[in-house]
């Protein structure tokens, strides 16, 4: 590999932040995160495929015995509401990348503001998801109502769990920053957390189209 050959001179050294150099020129932590995200594609691919297979299995849902999926989308999903949720999550990706950018430019105060904004936007998305789930259950569509609902709740629930984990990571980094443990020298740690957050956003981009918009 070209990059393997290009960076042998620093292999035996460590940088001034304790990270060992690798022959790819990329820290092990960052490479590990990307490999993890690659494997996450398989997890969400499986959940999305399962939903696609069973999205028309509405048999036991009252009033939808012979329903078409377009009717379900029109009557059950609140598309304008979900669109706002999607917009909120997209904007959280913007605030996340601005947080990383601020720390890289040694502006820790602004980084904290963007980090907090990201966590709040993520929490707003989760609040919207809880509202949506509650509305579905009140309509009679629970986790075990039919195969469609099981596939739907599993897919969106797994995604929601990822967002919650992301919020916990962000708040941990916010606390570390307040304690002076997340300075510019550790900007890569924040960048790696950002990669996870952006991936969660990217997954929702797919889920929003496949689950909510394609009839």
């Amino acid at each position, binding site marked *: 590999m070209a*990059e393997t050959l290009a960076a042998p001179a620093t292999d035996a050294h460590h940088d001034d932040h304790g990270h060992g*150099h690798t022959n790819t020129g*990329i820290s092990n932590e*960052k490479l590990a995160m990307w490999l993890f995200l690659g494997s996450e594609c398989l997890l969400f691919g499986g959940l999305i495929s399962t939903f696609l297979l*069973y999205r028309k299995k509405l048999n036991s849902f009252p009033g939808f015995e012979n329903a078409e999926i377009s009717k379900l989308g029109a009557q059950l999903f609140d598309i304008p509401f979900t669109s706002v949720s999607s917009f909120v999550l997209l904007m959280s990706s*913007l605030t996340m990348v601005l947080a990383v950018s601020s720390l890289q*430019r040694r502006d820790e105060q602004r980084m904290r503001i963007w980090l907090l904004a990201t966590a709040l936007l993520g929490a707003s998305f989760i609040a919207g998801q809880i509202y949506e789930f509650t509305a579905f259950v009140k309509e009679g569509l629970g986790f075990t109502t039919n195969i469609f609902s099981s596939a739907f709740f599993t897919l969106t629930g797994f995604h929601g769990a990822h967002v919650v984990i992301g919020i916990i990571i962000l708040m941990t980094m916010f606390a570390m920053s307040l304690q002076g443990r997340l300075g510019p020298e550790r900007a890569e740690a924040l960048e790696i957390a950002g990669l996870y957050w*952006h991936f969660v956003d990217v997954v929702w981009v797919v889920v929003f189209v496949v689950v909510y918009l394609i009839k």
Partner: protein
Amino acid sequence: MSTTTETTHGDHGAGHDEHPNRDMMYVKVALVLAAITGLETFTYFESVFDFGAALVPVLLVCMTAKFYLIAAYFMHLRWDKPVLRRAFLTGIVIALLVYAATLAAFKFFASGMPS
């Protein structure tokens, strides 16, 4: 930032230029993402404009464009080492192949329904 990052971000200069201020570019990308999301939502209102058979292709193009913009700009794949792009793409390609085969096995592409 570390030497590791210096070698990672190939277009970085010295000192503070090591991390060029791309904030305005990020905002522009976010505006494009918001506009695409608006278009996606617009497709739902068939009474205003019916995309007909073009609906699914339009949505898939919008989805792919958003996916690319986030991965390339927000996740920095545009500037990072190619090996990271390959690692991520490998996961995506494997997932697409495995689940396309699974869906085909269930005759999804023939009828849209499992057998």
